[in-house]
């Protein structure tokens, strides 16, 4: 067991950190957010140049063959800067579906395009009734000769408005909440019958509501793996989101500490008030506990025992959520009014952390499931 970064990993961290320092000042970010896509194509190309977009793919497929630790490093840096680009949707989620569910031919075709920054993916899964249940799928896929016809509606498809291809869950058999009968399809976003309405999310990012109206796809569109594939990629995504949350929390904590040191009230730095000192210390405790869980997530992302992986990832989601909420809320509280405004980064961290908390299951969702499944420490 060893928690140190390798030389290569440190290099990766440093170069991305430098890039973001350069491209992700608060005002620059505001500009990206106000643009039509809601993020920066420029920065995206810079990621591509840095090799980030091909990172998790096998070298044979045109990637770098990096693992979950590298994803953690990258997502954490992006979290610090509140980066807006579709890295997690395209590389972690889309990439995950390709790595674990696509054929060698599909990967040979698509991975280089992703790595070059020319192909964006999004995961169209959540439906109006499904809440956080991955197995709750009403969208249908019906056999049509060799191919399939997809019919249904998906909501809150993060970065679905700019994606070139959509990874779509649909049911080929069974009832709406059956675990069996779910398949995953890879569908061009401009396929006939696909209509998208983009919208802003509560943290100012972008998502889409997507309708599939008798969308015809060929046989190859169906990836291999069904619900198990979805769960695996969801867990990898939770690991990446957890790392992003750590970046947000760390930056929010730094911002708050700086403010405590410089803001004066009653003739002294407010950081000299013990109640705020203790709150800041508690923030630190929360951050370290969350960081530990983000590391656990990176370790568990590649766990092959599905039950073991799910169990740990649920614990990660609960603990990251709890601590993210405390750190986000206290960032605002200890700043006071200034962090309530759009013109200051503090509140944006709270917003992003809230969105992360509500992606792929909130605390109560995972806590309930985990407790039904026997808890964290199961008899060996």
């Amino acid at each position, binding site marked *: 067991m060893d928690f140190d970064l390798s030389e290569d990993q440190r290099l990766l961290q440093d170069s991305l950190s430098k890039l973001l320092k350069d491209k992700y000042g608060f005002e620059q970010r505001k500009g990206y957010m106000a643009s039509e896509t809601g993020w920066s194509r420029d920065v995206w190309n810079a990621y591509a140049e840095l090799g980030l977009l091909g990172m998790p793919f096998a070298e044979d497929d045109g990637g770098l063959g990096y693992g979950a630790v590298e994803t953690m490093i990258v997502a954490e840096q992006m979290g610090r800067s509140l980066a807006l680009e579709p890295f997690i949707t395209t590389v972690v989620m889309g990439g995950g579906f390709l790595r674990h569910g696509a054929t060698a031919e599909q990967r040979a075709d698509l991975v280089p395009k992703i790595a070059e920054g020319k192909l964006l993916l999004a995961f169209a899964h959540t439906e109006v009734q499904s809440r956080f249940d991955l197995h709750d799928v009403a969208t249908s896929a019906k056999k049509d000769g060799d191919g399939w016809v997809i019919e249904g509606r998906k909501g809150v498809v993060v970065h679905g408005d700019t994606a070139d291809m959509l990874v779509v869950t649909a049911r080929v058999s069974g009832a709406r909440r059956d675990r069996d009968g779910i398949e995953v399809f890879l569908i061009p976003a401009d396929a006939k019958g696909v209509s998208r309405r983009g919208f*802003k999310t509560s943290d100012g990012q972008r998502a889409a509501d997507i309708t599939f109206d008798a969308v015809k796809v060929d046989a190859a569109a169906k990836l291999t793996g069904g619900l198990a594939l979805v769960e695996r990629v969801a867990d990898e995504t939770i690991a990446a989101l957890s790392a992003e949350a750590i970046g947000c929390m760390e930056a929010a904590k730094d911002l708050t500490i700086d403010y405590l040191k410089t803001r004066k009230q009653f003739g002294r730095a407010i950081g000299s008030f013990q109640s705020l000192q203790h709150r800041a210390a508690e923030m630190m405790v929360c951050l370290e506990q969350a960081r530990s869980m983000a590391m656990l997530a990176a370790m568990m992302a590649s766990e092959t025992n599905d039950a073991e992986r799910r169990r740990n990832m649920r614990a990660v989601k609960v603990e990251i959520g709890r601590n993210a909420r405390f750190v986000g809320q206290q960032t605002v509280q200890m700043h006071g009014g200034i962090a309530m405004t759009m013109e200051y980064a503090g509140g944006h961290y709270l917003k992003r952390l*809230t969105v992360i908390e509500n992606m792929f299951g909130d605390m109560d969702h995972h806590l309930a499931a985990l407790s039904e499944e026997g808890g964290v420490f199961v008899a060996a």
Partner: protein
Amino acid sequence: MELRFTDEERAFRQEVREWIDANLPADTRERMASGRTPTKAMQVDWQKRLYDKGWAVPHWKVEWGGQPWSAIKRFILSEEIQSTPAPTPLGFNCNMLGPVLIAFGTEEQKKHFLPKLASLDLWFCQGFSEPGAGSDLASLKCAAKKEGDHYIVNGQKTWTTLAQHADWIFLLVRTDPGAAKQQEGISFLLVDMKTPGITVRPIITIDGAHEVNEVFFDDVKVPVANLVGTENRGWDCAKFLLSNERTGQARVGASKERIRRLKLIAKEAPGGARPVMDDPRFRSRLTDVEVQLKALEMTTLRVLADENRQLSRGKPNPASSVLKIRGTELQQAISELYVMAAGPYGLAAPNDPEADGRNEPDIAQDWQTLAQATYFNWRKQSIYGGSTEIQKNIMAKAFLGL
């Protein structure tokens, strides 16, 4: 000790409820029920109706339009307004400036302003906080120099709520920069927002709303007649105003309404296998908040019932700081329950029918899109009007002798 409402109080509640039902415009009610703040027109229209009925400022002296009611009766009216929900009479006019004028104003000021405050013919906003003077209000810098029969005001105010709607502003300014103590040398002025030299700049809060503003004063001429109370003794007015602020801050009626609504929503809210309300954990969290709110309701009544004694004692009831601290905590907790109920569709930013619709309305249900925005917005509750930290400092000093 009689801990039940009297028959008369119960009858009054019924009367209020029926009157509100008959008089509140449907669109105002609908907008309030969605969790949004009322538009300016809605606020003004509704307050005028209350004013005509004699119910806008029942806590004022009878000669100025108040009612000879017990505190409990006033509580009933206020709770019914909040829990309908209908707009609450504008706090700046009715709870802040009005009582200050009644206590400190000249006869002319009272005669001129009080009826307009009660009827909302004039909309006032509050010019207290400054960028460097938040919790430490007494360190304010905005200055007024007397020149002849005018003060010349220069400086900046911030967090000025609804300044964009306001006709006038009441202002704390420094009139004697050389005073021995920070709290001395401050004066309380009334300023027409149309006076040349005033600039209002919106502050957009993290929920995307325009509620607060910065207000800049550049050689603004204010007639000396607009001074309230004694020059350089404005801190007395400010202290009086702030100490009146607390019972209202519990907002028990409003919280009860939000919970009632959440229960209905959560019964229908899509939650996978079952509606959100059928999740025992969610239900427990909700009930837990209800329990605390019930306690806060009782605490509010205790503080109100103690009001007369409090005046003679000259000290606030120890329970009164509880109202702001727990009241805002509970409002925040309720907003978190809405986020929880909304689930993944809560990620959609809200559609604002007033603004040029950021999202199309049917991306998600209206309440879902408002859940996170409200949660973000309500983080302010524990910051403004005396932050939780300041409240605890006050308690430690006043009641614990620490």
